[in-house]
């Protein structure tokens, strides 16, 4: 959506379908024909563009109106607006949920298929033991050989299936010129401003001066950061602090530290948090951190954590730096 389009939507004569709370009785009348009313102050408005009717898309904006008047009456109004950040966040989260359900399905199928390998292995092993117990001219020795080779065929069918069912959603994104870690963090933190406000969370970012550039797809880096920050917000009580640091280590690695003052992770659970389908949340898919780790590993990075129950959790992300 270009800026031009936003302007036309805000222009009275071309206003699309509006579900705005600024068309109320207690508003100023700016103009009679065609009528335009505004209410002063900051509001959230939702605009559905006429040309978008088929797709029923609506965009949320945070607007701020100031009416300018003098003794003769209203001269006009001054309006500023920006796309509402959490609307953007919701969109990203929706995408993430869709992504996760596809991965869940694939992962589930793959892990069931994988489990077949254990019985195949024990059957194959016992057959080898049986094979040794027969004399060379015993017909049964030949039968056992056939069973073993058929089992091996079964195993290669499983491997073929597994390689076709591999998660292509976790494949590395297209390599670009690199992604700025600081800028991406700032962008994601901006998405969460509303969430921070709701829980009165103070989010402090502390970055090294040099711009940290990593060869990670920006969309995937955003997904990782949303996962981790969302987890932190959910784990924290009202008024807690979140600290995000980004710095270079040995000029080769970029470290991102996300430290919350949340409920922490039980010592027994620390080893399991990256396992698929492990979740302590009521509605968690158990895939957020699994996917996060997969993506990071794809880029030759790593993720680890420190956590104390009742005090909080710190996640450390390491990515190879391309420049700083």
């Amino acid at each position, binding site marked *: 959506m270009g800026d031009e389009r936003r302007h036309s939507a805000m222009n009275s004569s071309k206003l699309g379908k509006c579900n705005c709370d600024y068309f109320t009785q207690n508003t100023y009348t700016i103009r009679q024909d065609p009528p335009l009313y505004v209410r002063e102050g900051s509001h959230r408005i939702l605009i559905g563009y006429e040309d978008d009717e088929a797709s029923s898309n609506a965009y949320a904006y945070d607007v701020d109106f100031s009416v300018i008047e003098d003794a003769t009456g209203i001269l006009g109004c001054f309006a500023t607006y920006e796309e509402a950040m959490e609307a953007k966040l919701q969109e990203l989260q929706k995408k993430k949920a869709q992504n996760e359900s596809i991965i869940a399905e694939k992962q589930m199928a793959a892990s069931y298929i*994988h489990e077949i390998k254990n*019985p195949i292995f024990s059957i*194959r092993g*016992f057959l080898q*033991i049986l094979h040794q117990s027969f004399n060379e001219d015993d017909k049964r020795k030949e039968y056992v050989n056939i069973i073993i080779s058929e089992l*091996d065929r079964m195993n290669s069918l499983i491997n073929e299936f597994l390689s076709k069912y591999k998660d292509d959603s976790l494949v590395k994104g297209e390599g670009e010129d690199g992604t700025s870690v600081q800028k991406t963090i700032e962008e994601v933190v901006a998405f969460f401003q509303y969430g921070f406000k709701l829980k009165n969370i103070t989010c402090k970012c502390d970055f090294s001066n040099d711009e940290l550039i990593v060869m990670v797809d920006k969309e995937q880096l955003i997904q990782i950061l949303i996962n981790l920050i969302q987890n932190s917000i959910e784990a924290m009580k009202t008024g807690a602090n979140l600290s995000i640091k980004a710095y270079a280590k040995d000029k080769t690695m970029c470290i991102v530290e996300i430290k919350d003052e949340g409920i922490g992770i039980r010592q027994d659970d620390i*080893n399991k948090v990256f396992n698929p389908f492990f979740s302590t949340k009521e509605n968690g898919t158990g895939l957020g951190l699994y996917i996060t780790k997969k993506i990071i590993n794809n880029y030759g990075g790593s993720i680890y954590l420190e956590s104390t129950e009742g005090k909080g959790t710190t996640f450390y992300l390491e990515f190879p730096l391309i420049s700083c």
Partner: protein
Amino acid sequence: MQSYKVLIVDDEYWVKIMLQEVLINSGFTVFTASDHVEAVEVVKNDQPDIVILDVNLLDIDGISLLSRLKSIKSDIKAVFISGSSDAGCIEMAKAHGALGFFIKPFDILEFATFLIEISTSGMTSRGEGKWEMNGGTVQ
């Protein structure tokens, strides 16, 4: 010479029993464990020379368990077995000083021969072990 002591850690009952059978037939003294608690107990009490570890155990991953077992018996040797040929996992096993990585289902007689080699040659350092990748064997 005292018989070489092997500990098998796998949560799959019949896999454990089958490997036990093969290794006893090959002359080893064999202990088994299904989880990290049992494994730690065996290492403390019986001081096995080598541990065969499944990578994916129910309560812990095999690589973390190896670090734990090494903190009890620092010279314990390790060979990993796994249903998956994940390259990252194989690298990790190497980095933790494992002597080999076998992908299930593998040839148990070859496996037994490999363990006999370890027990007689005193193979200790990484790099000389046996590494399976994508179905093939990398020596």
